[in-house]
Structure formats: C-alpha cells, structure tokens
C-alpha cells in the first residue's frame, strides 16, 4: 500500500518536473517578446495621448496620493516636451462588468484630461466592449467615441455618468462599464490633481 503510494507520487513528480522544465524553456523564449509587446503598446498609447511630448519618465508610484481601494494604480509617467513637464499619464485598473479594465489616462499640467486610452477591457462584445471601439459614438452627430468625451474635461464633480448625476454620456445598455471606466478616470485624475496641487510636476 505504502509502496504503491510512493511509486504514484514519484511518477506524478516526474511528469510535473518534465512539464516544468519544458515550460521554463518556452517562457524564456517568449518572455522578451511579451515584454516588448507590452512596452510597444504602452509607448504607442502614450504618444497618442500626448502627440507633442518627447519623453515619458516613470514616477515612483508610491509618491502619488492614491485613496481608492477598488481601483489599482499601475504605473505613472511624467510627460515632458522640450524638457518642460506638460502633464502626467497614469495607468490604473479597476473592476468592470467582465473583469478588470485597464485604462491609461493623460492629464495636462492645467489639470484637464488630455486623453483616455482603454488598454484592456473584457466586457461584452457589442455592448460594454464598445467603450474601446473606434466605431461606436456616444454622440453620433459629432462622432465622439466614449473615451473621446473625456478629452479636455476638468477633474471635477461632473466626472460621473449621467445616471449618477454627472455629465458623462454612457454607452447604451452598458451603464456598468461606463461607470467603471469613468471611476477609474476620476481616480487617476484625482491623483494627478493632488500631485499638481502639492507642487509636483
């Protein structure tokens, strides 16, 4: 009985060990490329938010004032153009309808939203996923996409969806997604504003 158990354990361990070794190799082979992909995506998004900027320097995130427990701060960058700080970019993720959503928010030095980029969203295709679609417009006449409407907005109490008494247009039938994204943007904006008020750039 005991002997049989030990034999089973050893066989299982042998298979597990072989699988681990194999995976270690694959991981090593792909790790670099995965990191490069993530960096490329972030760099492209940053450039989209701040087309005129020439450098994006990382901020130590613990320096930012962050009070939100549901929304997790990812990373933050100081955006500089010609050696002058023109704003900051904050990446954060928070719970949405279909899992965590990751959003990159750019905030100008004068405290207004420079732009919003949805990096990762797992919500319902055709509904919540429209938040990241370039073909879905909350304002059809002006061709404003959901993230577009934040551009140039001040970080104030109006930064809430209309259903909650704010000024943000929601995506049809996707109030939860709209609210979740708006909350993440607000959290990023608040952190940026706090930093500007404290004299940081």
């Amino acid at each position, binding site marked *: 009985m005991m002997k049989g158990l030990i*034999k*089973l354990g050893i*066989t*299982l361990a042998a*298979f*597990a060990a072989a*699988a681990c070794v*194999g*995976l270690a190799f*694959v*991981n090593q082979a*792909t790790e670099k*490329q*995965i990191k490069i*992909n993530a960096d490329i*995506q972030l760099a492209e998004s940053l450039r989209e938010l701040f087309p005129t900027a020439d450098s994006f320097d990382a901020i130590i995130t613990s320096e930012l004032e962050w009070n939100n427990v549901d929304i997790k701060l990812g990373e933050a960058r100081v955006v500089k153009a010609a050696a002058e700080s023109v704003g900051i970019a904050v990446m954060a993720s928070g719970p949405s309808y279909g*899992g965590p959503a990751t959003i990159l928010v750019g905030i100008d030095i004068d405290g207004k939203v420079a732009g919003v980029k949805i990096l*990762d969203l*797992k919500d*319902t*295709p*055709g*509904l919540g996923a429209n938040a990241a679609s370039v073909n879905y417009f909350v304002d059809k006449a002006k061709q404003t996409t959901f993230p577009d409407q934040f551009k140039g907005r001040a970080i104030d109490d109006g930064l809430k969806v209309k259903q909650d008494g704010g000024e943000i247009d929601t995506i049809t039938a996707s109030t939860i997604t709209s609210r979740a994204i708006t909350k993440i943007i607000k959290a990023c904006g608040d952190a940026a504003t706090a930093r500007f008020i404290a004299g940081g750039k």
Partner: protein
Amino acid sequence: MNRYWKIFKQGIINENPLLMLMIGLCSALAVTTNVQNGVGMGLAMTFVLLFSEIIISAFRKVIPSSARMPIFIIIIAAFTTVIDLVMKAYFPALSKSMGVFIPLIVVNCIIMGRVEAYSYKQKVVDCVFDSFGMGLGYTWVLVGIAAFRELLGNGTVAGFPLFEKLGFVGFQPILFFILPPGGFLVFALFISFNIWLKKRMAKSAKAIAAEVAA
C-alpha cells in the same frame, strides 16, 4: 490508410465533439463573436489536443491508472501554457481578444474526454489522426458559428464589412446574435444541420450499397 481516414473522419461529422458529443461548449459559445477568434481558438485547441494526445499515448504504459487524471492535467496544462505564451508573444491582438479562454483550454472537456477515452488506450499514430479530426471538427463549427453571428450581429465577416460592400448600407446589426442567447440559437441550428447531414450521408451510403448489390 483507409483506417486512418476513418479515424480522422469521425471527429468532423459523425462524432463531432461539439455537435454530437456536446462537450467543450462553454468556450465554443463564448469566443464565437467574430471569425478571427473562432479560427484562433480552434487552432489553439487543436495544438493542445494534438500534443497532449501524442504524449499521453506515448507514455500510456507508464502512466499508472490510479494517478492518470492529475498526470493528464499536468500535460494538458503544460501545452496550454505553451500556446498561451506563444500567442501573447507573437499574436498579441488575438491573445487579447480571447482573454481568459486560452488558459481555460486546460479544462476543456474535449481534450480531457479524448485523452481519457482514446489516447490512453490507442497507438500514437491513431492519436495523431484522432486529434486532427477532433480539432478540425471543433474548428469548423467554431468558425461557422462565428461567421454567422458576426455577420448578423455586427454586419462583418472577419472584420470585413460584407453587407456594406454588397450595398446594404442601411443594415442594422442584430445585437441579439452577438449576445449569449444568439449564440445558443445559432448553435442549435448547427446541431440540427449536422444531424440532417449525418442522416443524408447515411442514406446516400445505403443507396450506393444497394446499387453495388444490384
């Protein structure tokens, strides 16, 4: 050769994992909102199935039957992680749109079912044909459902605006088809189509046999 063709053919219609065995439905309904996802998921799943079947069949004599389940899971999980990492590295967009469903291949019943019922008892070569047949059977249904749902629910096929190009400019996408209920409906249509096809094939096989006899 005829024998291998028979094994291969089984998975496509007669024993189609989705339409006849009705396993692995969760991923099939969830990712089929556009054609790219259908193709990607089908290929990823075929890859994992193929290598898991080969390894398990090759080692079937040394895998003790009382510990076979954990060993199967280790092997399947290893190949799933491989495909997950490779997709993340070289097909980032596809990997993103399929999200959690690639890691979930580990618990896909089709793979568990095939390694348990087939490759644990059969020779490696048979397993290769079985996994290709089952993989293709899974993939064609996925792509079919996805094309149907994407066309009606979004007006496109693999991102190509088919209706617009054909001149139906006023086409209003039927959101229903993208949502889960639409998935179930289309899936049911595919099941009935497959049964019809199977019956028809059996009939024509009988007719041929009768002709040969006469």
